[in-house]
């Protein structure tokens, strides 16, 4: 028999907007004011030991689901059930008080998160060791650095020992070493058959950790299943690939030079927005010069799905001089081969002056594309690139 630990059945959540909010919430009066359905008739189940990645655009209802699960708010309709103790790594350190010492804050925050005193006593050393703030335990928290506070907050929250753990974007706290520690803690919980609900905009971490992905939008479930497939369908809606890529760009105002079209082509020359890892691809940029320009510089920056810049280059770097004669010209950047990991990417194209100081035209996310290749879900690669490389084996080193 399947062991279900979280059940949502026909859950809807309505928020009241604007000034009628207070009255409506208090008297449960639906007629007044504008309402907004954050969740609509949502039903799903989570099995024990599963790690669920919760994805969707901003405003899709992700945090409402977390709020309902953690009982911060109640659904307007429907019911839900959680078996066992629930812990949330949502706003770590929300209960901290700046005037209290680190030690006092561990006890206070532990109590707020639902730990008993003897339980905190028992885990105190473990929490402190995890947070790496031993030396400052008896210092008021107001003298802590931001990083120390976050580490202490995470340390307390990570030791609640929950049956169901909600994690919201906290994988991004602290330095790399601390992040590794956090990931190990999550892996440890997984091994103990705990259930985890992970919310993140970072698809690599979703793919890396989830056993299933729940994709929601507009308060309803779009898909609930295999991580790779679900993330991919989600990304396809975020970027309407292929169409936008070849669209004629509208002319800028008074610039002497402007970008008119950006097209990403795969190895076969198709502009359908899907590239393959290990195969060549090209970015064609059509630009128009209306007045004489002295040695313009073309720059391209690649982004992940959240528009986080991954890397870029300029024509100057490679010593290329653009054709600046009046009229329309095309410049082609050839990627040979594509080294992106599986996922969705965008490219921003800009033309700058000869000193690379001023933008003469800039097209954020001028084109987007999907890459089919090694997935971080396999945990065999990580991040967004696989750098050009080779391995050497030196058996019995030195002999």
């Amino acid at each position, binding site marked *: 028999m399947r062991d279900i630990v979280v059940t949502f059945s026909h859950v809807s959540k309505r928020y009241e907007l604007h000034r009628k909010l207070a009255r409506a919430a208090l008297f449960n009066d639906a007629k007044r004011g504008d309402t907004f359905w954050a969740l609509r008739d949502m039903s799903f189940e989570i099995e024990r030991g599963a790690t669920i990645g919760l994805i969707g655009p901003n405003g899709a209802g992700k945090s409402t689901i977390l*709020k309902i699960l953690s009982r911060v708010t109640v659904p307007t309709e429907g019911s839900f*059930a*959680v078996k066992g*103790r629930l812990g949330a790594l*949502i706003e770590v350190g*929300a209960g901290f008080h700046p005037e*209290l010492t680190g030690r006092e804050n561990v*006890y*206070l925050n532990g*109590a707020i998160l639902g730990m008993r005193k003897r339980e905190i006593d028992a885990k105190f050393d473990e929490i402190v060791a995890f947070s790496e703030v031993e030396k400052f335990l008896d210092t008021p928290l107001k003298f802590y650095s931001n990083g120390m506070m976050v580490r202490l907050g995470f340390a307390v929250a990570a030791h609640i020992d929950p049956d169901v753990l909600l994690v919201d974007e906290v994988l991004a706290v602290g330095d790399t070493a601390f992040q590794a520690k956090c990931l190990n803690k999550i892996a440890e919980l997984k091994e103990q058959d705990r259930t985890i609900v992970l919310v993140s905009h970072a698809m690599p971490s979703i793919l890396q950790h989830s056993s299933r992905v729940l994709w929601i939008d507009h308060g309803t479930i779009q898909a609930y299943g295999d991580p790779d497939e679900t993330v991919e369908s989600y990304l396809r809606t975020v970027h309407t690939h292929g169409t936008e890529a070849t669209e004629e760009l509208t002319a800028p105002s008074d610039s002497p030079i402007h970008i008119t079209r950006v097209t990403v082509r795969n190895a076969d020359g198709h502009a359908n927005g899907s590239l393959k890892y290990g195969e060549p691809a090209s970015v064609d940029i059509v630009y128009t010069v209306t007045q004489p320009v002295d040695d313009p510089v073309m720059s391209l920056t690649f982004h992940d799905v959240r528009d986080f810049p991954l890397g870029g280059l300029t024509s100057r770097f490679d010593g290329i001089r653009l054709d600046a004669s009046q009229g329309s010209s095309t410049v082609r950047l050839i990627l040979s081969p594509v080294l992106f990991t599986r996922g969705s990417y965008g490219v921003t194209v800009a033309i700058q002056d000869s000193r690379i100081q001023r933008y003469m035209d800039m097209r954020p996310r001028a084109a987007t594309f999907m890459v089919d290749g090694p997935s971080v879900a396999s945990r065999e690669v990580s991040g967004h690139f696989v750098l050009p490389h080779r391995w050497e084996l030196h058996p019995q080193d030195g002999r």
Partner: protein
Amino acid sequence: MRIAIKPYRPEHDVDVNSLFAMNYLQELADNAHLVLSFAKRDIRAKYKQTILGVAWAVIQPVSLMIVFTLVFSLFARVPSEGIPYPIFSYSVLIFWTFFATSLSQGTVAMTANATLVRKIYFPRETLLLAVMLSALVDLGVAGLILVAMFVYYQVALSWAALWVIPLLALEVLFVLAVILMTSSLQVYFRDMGHALPLLLQLWMYASPIAYPLTSVPEWLRPFYLLNPMAGIIDGFRRALLHGEHPDFTYLGIACPVIVIALAGAYLFFKRAERTFADVI
């Protein structure tokens, strides 16, 4: 070594329509330690980075006593039933200060902890109980001055002084009822916080603190005593200064008012609490 600890935030199976059936009191009892933690935080935080520290617990009732003594004893001669006016007023001012402090801090307890309320679930009334606990500590400190005054004015205490304990218990229940209401109203309508200082001032003059209850005209008393604080304050004074038991007729009015107010306020609070996070 793994220490097995029974999860005590009970498994929850929440049906919106049956929320009332949940055992609020059981949940509150499970979170007693949280009340202590919040109270400790409030007390520590209140007096940190102050010069006078815990002396502030005394300054408020003592200054009121001085003002009252000047105004009501020196300028206008308010009867004090043959008792030196400073001790006549101070003996009840400390209990009034407990009421006023709990009310003003309790009312804003939810909004002052908005980040917590928005992010983490815990029974919200723990914040109110913590406020009262920290106000009780202040009361204890202010009580030391009262003891000194008893010695100075050579007022003898009788066994009747023990009535202070049940009277204080009644006052605690009443304060709780009031702040359960005002704190949830404050979440929805910040007007509550603005009205509070005025309310407290009116309430103080509507209670027999600066004057004896006997100076309230007979015809007005039935209405006057609907304010539970009137009977309670009068009881404190009888017990401490006159060596008498409280007037049971007065308390007979106060008790049902308190019980009804508390039950109603708690249910109201628990209902309002569900949407605190959405509105705060």
